[in-house]
């Protein structure tokens, strides 16, 4: 077997292992004893799945904003002349979209798991809890970002303007996610326990399960992100392939050697 075959085997083995771990952690999350202090202790497990989502969502939001910044920041001061510059900027845009798409997925998951949790613990699905509202507004920002992207046909304009919007949104989002729920008058009205995690009240088996889920979902996110970036770069290549120039008027990368098929011919 050649190297490629070996690598593929390793890849598949890793994936199988990961799937196994996912199953193990899921089952484990059902084995830990019920939590006290909740209205429906047996359903407090929802927390294991609800908690990692906003963490990843916030992380991806700032990562996406950073990539948007990198996309824009080269333009100031000098014009983009060379093809490599242009390609690099397009890459930053792809990375930003990848991070933000994944972040949006986690945002939706956060909202749904949060609603479920609220339903079982307090009987109502929406309470205008400050954190709940903050993440709803974050979801609106995401929605606006993707709506903005669909409104441009020119890829350069699309990338630049959506990057600008993300940068404009960073500050309101920081305020919403970090400052607002911690304001004194707001914290009192909140159903979210801001102190319990900081003060280490989550101990023992619960802490372990939560950490395990966080680690697993983070690994999954990184993998999905890289896959999405690869999809984006492939799409970019496919667009320019077989044409004389790219959208931006730069010469398209011409195939010097016969292009290799990316799908396995066997």
């Amino acid at each position, binding site marked *: 077997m050649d190297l490629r075959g070996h690598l593929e085997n390793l890849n598949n083995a890793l994936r199988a292992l990961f799937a196994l771990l996912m199953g193990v952690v899921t089952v484990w999350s059902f084995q830990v004893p019920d939590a006290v202090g909740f209205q429906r202790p047996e359903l407090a497990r929802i927390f294991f799945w609800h908690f990692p989502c906003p963490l990843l969502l916030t992380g991806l939001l700032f990562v996406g904003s950073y990539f948007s910044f990198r996309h824009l920041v080269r333009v100031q001061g000098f014009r983009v002349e060379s093809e490599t510059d242009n390609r690099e900027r397009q890459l930053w845009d792809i990375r930003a979209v990848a991070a933000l798409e994944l972040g949006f997925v986690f945002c939706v998951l956060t909202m749904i798991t949060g609603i479920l949790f609220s339903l079982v613990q307090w009987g109502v699905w929406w309470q205008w809890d400050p954190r709940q509202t903050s993440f709803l507004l974050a979801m609106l920002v995401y929605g606006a970002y993707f709506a903005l992207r669909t409104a441009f046909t020119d890829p350069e304009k699309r990338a630049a303007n959506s990057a600008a919007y993300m940068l*404009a949104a960073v500050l309101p989002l920081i305020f919403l996610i970090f400052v607002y729920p911690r304001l004194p008058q707001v914290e009192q009205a909140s159903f979210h326990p801001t102190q319990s995690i900081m003060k280490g009240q989550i101990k023992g088996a619960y802490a372990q399960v939560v950490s395990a889920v966080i680690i697993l979902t983070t690994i999954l996110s990184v993998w999905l992100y890289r896959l999405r970036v690869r999809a984006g770069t492939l799409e970019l290549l496919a667009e320019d392939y077989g044409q004389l120039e790219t959208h931006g008027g730069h010469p398209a990368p011409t195939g010097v050697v016969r292009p290799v098929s990316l799908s396995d011919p066997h």
Partner: protein
Amino acid sequence: MSSGWKAEILAVYRKELQTELRSKSGLVTAGLFSFVTVVTISLVLFNKNVNAPGSGLQDISAGLVWVVILFASILNLPRTFLLEEEQGTADLLRLFARPHAVYWGKVLFNILQVLGTATLVSVLFLGFTGTRVSVPWIYVVSLIGGSCSMAGAVTLCGAIVAQAANRAALAGAIAVPLLLPLVQLGVTGMRAAFGSGLVGGGQAAAVGLVAYAAIMLAIGPWIYAAIWKT
């Protein structure tokens, strides 16, 4: 060097002012919208004593004022950039001015517009509904801070969508998520001003609004400068 900046900014500002005064369409639209909306809201609140303590109507009033100002702004403010694209004068602007100056000139004009709209809405709203303002300074500071933030954010969103499809509606749609934290702060402030919330909370909200405005106006020119050549 600084006189160069001031001259450029004032030039852009004067150009906006003159264009608007010639056609007056923005003023008329904003004014008409404010008037019609306030009348509608007052009608909806008919026979209700808004000032009755514990009725919760003061909180609703506080919210409604902001909603009217927000939507009137969204209708009107993006026009400063959208019209440039539609009328084909955008490239001329890029030739003759620097991005920061262009942004500041347009924002200054938009601040004027929003303050005008906010004043009109306040007068009409307080007049028609008879709401009493217990703590006037919170009201005024919240209004000014909120108006400046709104101007900064909506102007920037107008610049971002200037070359997009369906730009007029899109500008408003993407500006609203950025402004909702501001609306939250503003309503808190206004509830305190109408006497239904804690004065301490209102003070904090008013200060927060001014800070929000300062930050929005500070980062706006930089973001605009990054995209204005596209």
